[in-house]
């Protein structure tokens, strides 16, 4: 049986696929984290072949028809829409999350800052890295959006060969440039993949310093606020002022850091020094 599991915070959707070829592509969205502290609604749907195309009726009633790649796109859209519906009026930060006993540390980086590579390195070292893309701001706490880490083929040479080999075994699609993007479950390396609501203890802004020295400094609230609101936040359709205010309060209660992300082993040691 060809089955894929799509997971939001409050929903588990089991999708049965008709054949191996559709499963190979759509399993890119498969995610099976342990989500703690939220009720979960479980539902099942089945895709069928019809005149060479796939048909899939989502729980919302919407009928998707097309290639496996098209359905995958629709499932990603569904995942985002359901997340917004599950947390109405909440903003989402564009950043990865590392969870410890202290709470969440949100890692924000501009394109090319090495965010995903750094988070992968941490996951492989045993840290709980529940997400690399979004964290939902729910009142005074954050909830990582359940999704596998997305790793571009070009990132693999920076990682150890053992980690790269494990990543190559993960589901992959090709991006617009023809390069592979892998969907890596954070527990691939033997650690845990646990998602829970927790306070945000740290927000770390990454700057690239590829292969060089890593260092870190505290940053001001205004500096952090500006970077976040420039291009790292997704606001709800309604209640934007409330969402902004929650985010501002959350930043007031967190330690804010500017981190030059260099050599990965050294970067991990520097990172450890702030959240131990």
């Amino acid at each position, binding site marked *: 049986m060809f089955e894929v599991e799509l997971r939001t915070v409050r929903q588990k959707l089991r999708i049965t696929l008709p054949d191996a070829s559709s499963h190979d592509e759509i399993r890119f969205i498969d995610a099976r984290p342990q989500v703690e502290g939220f009720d979960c609604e479980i539902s099942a749907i089945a895709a069928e072949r019809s005149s060479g195309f796939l048909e899939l009726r989502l729980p919302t009633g919407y009928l998707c028809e097309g290639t496996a790649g098209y359905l995958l796109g629709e499932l990603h859209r569904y995942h985002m829409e359901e997340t917004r519906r599950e947390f109405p009026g909440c903003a989402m930060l564009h950043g990865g999350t590392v969870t410890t006993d202290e709470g969440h540390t949100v890692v924000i980086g501009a394109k090319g800052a090495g965010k995903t590579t750094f988070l992968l390195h941490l996951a492989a070292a045993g840290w709980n890295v529940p997400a690399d893309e979004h964290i939902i701001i729910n009142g005074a706490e954050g909830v990582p959006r359940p999704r596998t880490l997305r790793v571009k083929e070009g990132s693999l040479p920076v990682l150890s060969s053992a980690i790269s080999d494990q990543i190559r075994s993960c589901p992959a699609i090709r991006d617009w440039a023809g390069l592979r993007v892998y969907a890596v479950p954070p527990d691939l390396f033997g650690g845990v993949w646990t998602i829970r609501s927790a306070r945000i203890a740290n927000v770390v802004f990454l700057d690239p310093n590829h292969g060089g020295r890593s260092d870190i400094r505290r940053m001001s609230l205004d500096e952090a606020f500006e970077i976040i609101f420039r291009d790292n936040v997704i606001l709800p359709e309604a209640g934007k*002022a409330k969402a902004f205010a929650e985010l501002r309060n959350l930043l007031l209660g967190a330690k804010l850091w500017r981190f030059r992300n260099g050599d990965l082993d050294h970067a991990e040691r520097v990172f450890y020094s702030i959240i131990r």
Partner: protein
Amino acid sequence: MADKFKNTDMFTQVSGCEAVQTADGMVVYQTDKEKVHYLNSTAAIVYELCDRHQTIDGIARFMQTMYELPDVPTAEVHDCIASLVDQGVIETCSR
């Protein structure tokens, strides 16, 4: 430089703004322009008082009492009001 407004001028909050207090001030969102303003705690008080039919003079005297200032901060309130008007979150109104 001459003040932009008279001490007897009154202001009101521009309609269509959502305002929410934060621990250190206030966030005001202009829905039509999709623009967000962060007001520090002093500006937030001025913004609130603008909806209570206070003149600049009245706001300045309130601030003097609230912060136990030796002088009435008329010039500072003028600056704050001018900035809030420029940002489009308050506007002049008649009595």
